[in-house]
């Protein structure tokens, strides 16, 4: 479950969501704008039709068969040149009368044949080249044989002027809606339980997924579950094997002790071999137990109570009258297997308790997304030149305190499994300070 994969999946989901939200909102926004424009257009056409009827009513045929319009439409727009409001009266030969606003130009109209009294709508062009909406009616006034086309037109800008503020408002509202939806999609995608598993907050993805994802989530959960089971089985088998082997070792070691009276040298070398076998067993067991590399086994473990409890047990088992200084920050977390933290703490504290003269200090603190855990004592310490060797397998710098070398080597193994590090330096108390840096929060 690498973060790279989770990240790209998240990005793809997010991109897809953003795309669909944009398309859906564009389509619905376009439809609303179109309907709005249609409604305004219809109103404008109705207004134009009324003007046409007024014009028709104002047409007079003089006895000389001259046609005139009296009175002229009262609207001042028809008098102002290129105002955007125009009218014309056309005979079979062309334009007979026109509004002053047309100046000396004419409207460009599609050719049309209308029955008497019929009303038509068109798109046309004004003399200044701008698009116009047109309504015309054909009439055959008394005294004429041929029909007249009475035309009223208005600049389309008049329509746009009415609709633009509404369309702009609509666009802004839809853009805000789109942004909100994309943010919601991002929250939905990024706060999923997949990252929760890496963070140690969940064991499984669980149910409640959309059908398309449910199958995959279920499959993943089965893999996680069998993974965990496999590791637990392996650990249990290792523990069982160790139990059996160590019991045999215990019997053999006691036999070696009994042999001491007969052949001291043979008994000693036998005991040495048995001790070496035990160290080997301990070391490999520690390696098997290290759950650090397995994300499914990682949990967010509060470090302070775990370390505190281990310190209690170490002190109790050692029976040494030491003063233990605890500096355990309550917010310190460890991302991993609780048993591994207990093992690290137990080994470090056990070492310190064996070597300390009077004082031991244990400290747990959170450093950014890491846990810093240190144990120090006022014992003899380890010379700087020897420190590198201590973390090697089972090197004992002094045989006085049994098993101390192995303890640090086990800590080294465990810490390495978590990608952490071990630091050895001088303690202000006078002895050795061992510091361990471990992951606390998953790196993204």
């Amino acid at each position, binding site marked *: 479950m690498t973060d790279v994969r989770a990240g790209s999946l998240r990005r793809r989901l997010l991109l897809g969501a953003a795309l669909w939200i944009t398309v859906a909102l564009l389509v619905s926004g376009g439809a609303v704008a179109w309907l709005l424009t249609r409604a305004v257009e219809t109103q404008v056409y109705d207004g134009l039709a009324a003007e046409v009827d007024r014009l028709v009513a104002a047409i007079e045929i003089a006895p000389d068969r001259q046609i005139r319009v009296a009175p002229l439409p009262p609207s001042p727009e028809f008098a102002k040149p290129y105002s955007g409001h125009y009218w014309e009266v056309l005979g079979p030969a062309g334009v007979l009368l026109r509004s002053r606003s047309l100046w000396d130009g004419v409207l460009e109209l599609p050719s049309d044949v209308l029955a008497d009294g019929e009303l038509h709508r068109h798109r046309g062009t004004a003399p200044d080249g701008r698009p116009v909406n047109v309504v015309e009616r054909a009439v055959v006034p008394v005294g004429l044989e041929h029909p007249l086309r009475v035309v009223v037109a208005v600049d389309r800008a008049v329509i746009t002027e009415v609709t633009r503020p509404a369309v702009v408002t609509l666009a802004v509202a839809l853009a805000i809606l789109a942004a909100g939806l994309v943010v919601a999609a991002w929250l939905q995608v990024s706060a999923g339980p997949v990252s929760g598993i890496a963070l140690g907050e969940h064991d499984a993805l669980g149910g409640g997924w959309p059908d398309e994802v449910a199958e995959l989530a279920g499959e993943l959960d089965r893999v996680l579950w069998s993974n965990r089971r496999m590791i637990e089985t392996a650990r249990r088998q290792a523990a069982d094997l160790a139990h059996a082997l*160590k019991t045999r070792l215990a019997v053999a070691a006691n036999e070696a002790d009994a042999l001491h009276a007969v052949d001291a040298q043979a008994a000693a070398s036998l005991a040495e071999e048995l001790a070496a076998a035990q160290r080997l067993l301990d070391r490999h067991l520690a390696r098997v137990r290290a759950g650090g590399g397995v994300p499914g086994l990682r949990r967010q473990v509060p470090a302070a109570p775990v370390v505190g*409890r281990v310190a209690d047990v170490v002190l109790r088992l050692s029976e040494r009258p030491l003063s233990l200084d605890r500096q355990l920050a309550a917010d310190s977390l460890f991302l991993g297997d609780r*048993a591994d933290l207990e093992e690290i703490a137990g080994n470090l504290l056990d070492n310190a308790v064996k070597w300390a003269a009077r004082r031991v200090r244990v400290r747990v603190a959170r450093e950014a997304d890491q846990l810093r855990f240190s144990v120090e004592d006022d014992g003899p310490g380890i010379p700087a030149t020897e420190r590198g060797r201590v973390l090697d397998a089972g090197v004992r710098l002094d045989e006085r305190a049994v098993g101390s070398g192995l303890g640090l080597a086990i800590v080294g193994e465990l810490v390495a499994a978590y990608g952490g590090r071990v630091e050895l330096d001088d303690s202000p108390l006078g002895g050795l300070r061992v510091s361990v840096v471990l992951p606390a929060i998953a790196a993204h």
Partner: protein
Amino acid sequence: MRILVVEDDARLAQQLHLALESAGYAVDRCGDGAEANFLGETEPYDAVVLDLGLPTRDGLSVLRAWRGAGIDFPVIVLTARDSWHEKVEGIDAGADDYLAKPFRIEELLARVRAVLRRAGGRSGDVMQFGPIEIDTRRKQVTRDGVPVALTAHEYRVLAYLAHRAGTTVSRSELTEHIYAQDFDRDSNTLEVFVARLRRKLAPELIRTERGLGYRLDPDPFAAPTGD
């Protein structure tokens, strides 16, 4: 002092049995969790050596059951499962000490002495009663520095009375703590042991409380205070 050894490996159990017996303890042995649970609930042991990996019932659950029932004899957990996680778990379950396999018998004997010492509220392996000295580590009794030879049963009677120094120990309690379970007990022999101890060490060392039992005072040779 009577000790229960719970260990399913027959060979190791045998070694432990012999070592503890020669250190002066009465020893019961069992290799099964359910049986151990029953024995712990019915017999008054002074300490228990408990292996965790047992057939029929896990040692930790047996330990929790004992503690849950208010049984408070000291328990030394003996196990190959020696990770710190398991040690913490063992102590939390009520163990008094934890010994990882493989171990040296001397180490186990020292731990047994330590838990008994703590249970009796003493600080050392040597108990002093006037001129009489009982060294539980060497299983040796001296009078004015001169070793006194005691039989195994005489030593057990003395060690138990010394362990409970200052309190009156009934004959039945004494019997239960000096004999192993399968031993053919005869309470009359108790009087014989006490009589021999008085003769070998000092007549005033062990007092008889009529109808109640025996008592070893912390300072049996002090002048009577009058109360």
